[in-house]
């Protein structure tokens, strides 16, 4: 069989390590190395235990390795701004899970095919990964004039990065609804709920459409839910699409796969699931390009 494309993860935190589990047994991509900056970190220890190379020298350990072609950045916006040009100079494709947004926004099921050759892709936000597919599906059949999403997540699954810059979530998600979802205008709202046991991630998508064809919209939404389920198994429709005049309401619940993060953290799971799916598809296209030569 052909060799797989080698990849690395920068940032062995919750997200990075959950992604590590999701990159096992992939068809085209193979995780080679996990790097961080703290030698005794729990994440690096887990990576070693699972048989991956590790380094606490950060990105330098990856740049020195020519075999690594795809790098997932699960650090933060500021570090990624430093990492991005270094990765590009060294011909490594960056899949950015931070809010830095150096490259174009990508939601695998919607627009990854357009950006397979991009040196850097950004995964928007968890709310964006969950809701943009639905907006894109509705837009295709009904022309979305305005899209508004409400993401409700458990307080426990919102880390300090999200909390200290909550505006970044709403603004980035709103831009994603327009740029990737195809809405003319977008708005995003995020709510943190501290209930115990923690709640699952919930998303409500409201759209105002030009052609409120109930049958077509319902079909498009159901189809899209099935497509997203292929890489996010816990993605489900909570209430059938509600169409009232030109307003369409869709409600979702996202249960995490429970790889490393708890199941309620569907918001984090959908990011790592999207990253893994994007990585595998990009790896496949790199392999095809190689064979083509």
């Amino acid at each position, binding site marked *: 069989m052909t060799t797989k494309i080698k990849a690395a993860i920068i940032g062995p935190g919750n997200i990075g390590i959950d992604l590590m589990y999701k990159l096992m047994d992939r068809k085209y991509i193979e995780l080679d190395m996990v790097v961080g900056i703290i030698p005794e970190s729990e994440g690096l220890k887990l990576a070693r235990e699972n048989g991956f190379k590790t380094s606490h020298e950060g990105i330098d350990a990856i740049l020195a390795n020519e075999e690594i072609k795809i790098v997932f950045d699960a650090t933060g916006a500021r570090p990624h701004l430093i990492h991005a040009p270094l990765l590009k100079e060294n011909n490594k494709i960056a899949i950015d899970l931070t809010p830095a947004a150096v490259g174009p926004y990508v939601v695998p099921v919607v627009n990854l095919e357009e950006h397979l050759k991009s040196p850097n892709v950004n995964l928007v936000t968890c709310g964006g990964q969950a809701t943009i597919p639905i907006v894109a599906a509705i837009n295709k059949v009904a022309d979305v004039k305005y899209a508004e999403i409400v993401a409700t997540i458990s307080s426990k699954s919102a880390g300090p990065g999200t*909390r200290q810059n909550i505006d970044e979530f709403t*603004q980035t998600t709103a831009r994603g609804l327009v740029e990737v979802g195809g809405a003319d205008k977008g*708005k995003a*709202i995020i709510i943190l709920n501290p209930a115990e046991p923690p709640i699952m991630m919930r998303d*409500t998508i409201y759209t105002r459409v030009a052609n409120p064809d109930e049958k077509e919209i319902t079909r498009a939404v159901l189809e899209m839910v099935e497509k997203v389920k292929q890489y996010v198994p816990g993605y489900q429709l909570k*209430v059938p699409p509600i169409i009232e005049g030109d307003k369409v309401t869709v409600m979702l619940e996202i249960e995490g796969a429970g790889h490393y993060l708890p199941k309620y953290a569907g918001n984090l799971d959908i990011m790592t699931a999207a990253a893994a799916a994007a990585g595998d598809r990009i790896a496949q296209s790199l392999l095809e390009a190689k064979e083509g030569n």
Partner: protein
Amino acid sequence: MGRKIRIIDTTLRDGMHAVSHQFSPDDMAEIAKSLDEAGVDTIEIGHGDGLGGSSFQYGFSAYSDEDYVTAVSKVLKNAKLDVLLLPGIGTKKELEAAAKYGAKVARVATHVTEADVGEQHIKLAKDLGMEAVGFLMMTHMADVKTIVEQAKLFASYGADTIYVTDSAGALTPQGVFERIKAVKEATGLPIGHHAHNNLGLAVANTLAAIEAGADLVDATCKGLGAGAGNTQIEVLVAVLHKLGYETGIDLYKIMDVADDVVVPKMKRPIVIDKNSLTIGYAGVYGSFLLHALRAAEKFGVDARDILFEMGQRRTVGGQEDMIVDVAYELSKNK
């Protein structure tokens, strides 16, 4: 006796819930001008859910934040213009715009356990030269220790004042008293209380807050607000004057504002009915009321069952979308 109590009138913000956010800038200017003339210290205006609240989720307001702030700031002579911001709904961008058009006070409202999402907004308010208020919502859902910790977070970001809010109108006077007292002792800052009347206790709870050391309290004309409304300002002023507190408000004038200016603009009377009472009893966010009534009609279920279930699920402020979800489930299980 004789202590000065600062009253923030929220007729033009919390009251917007009761009119489905449909006041016009002219309505707001007229009411705000008469409140100012009656001697009200601070006037909060805007969409019921604060800056950026206009949405499918909460209802679209008739005009933009900018229209409201501009219209009201033009007519105020003495009163300070106040805006509310719920991080996750409104952003720094909207706060900057509100400041530019004349807002002087920013109240940054978070769920009682989530003050840290408001850090950047409190700091921005201070940078803009505004008075910054850390506004803890739904405080009936947390114990005193948690409330104190969260209040201290707001204080550490530079908040000038901390509010301990009973967004569900679910607290009784003793609960208000112990919360206010603890936060006042722990922070040493001016402390405020915002009450709702779902259990018929808004004035009593406001008094309990003042007795516990609160320096500021919220109230609205005729009690106009979410659920069964807020503390009725003209009643509160009468009670406080009777007890010898100073408010700076002219009692006759505030009665006139309530009855002659606000009443003609109201869409429905503010009363404790079976549904608003259920909100207080179940401890759910006051603005769920009209959303629950609409969902109850659409799905053929009792609004009280929806509200109770919302309480069971420990929903927080802003989760209006969950009402549809719950109503749908209730209708399926019937």
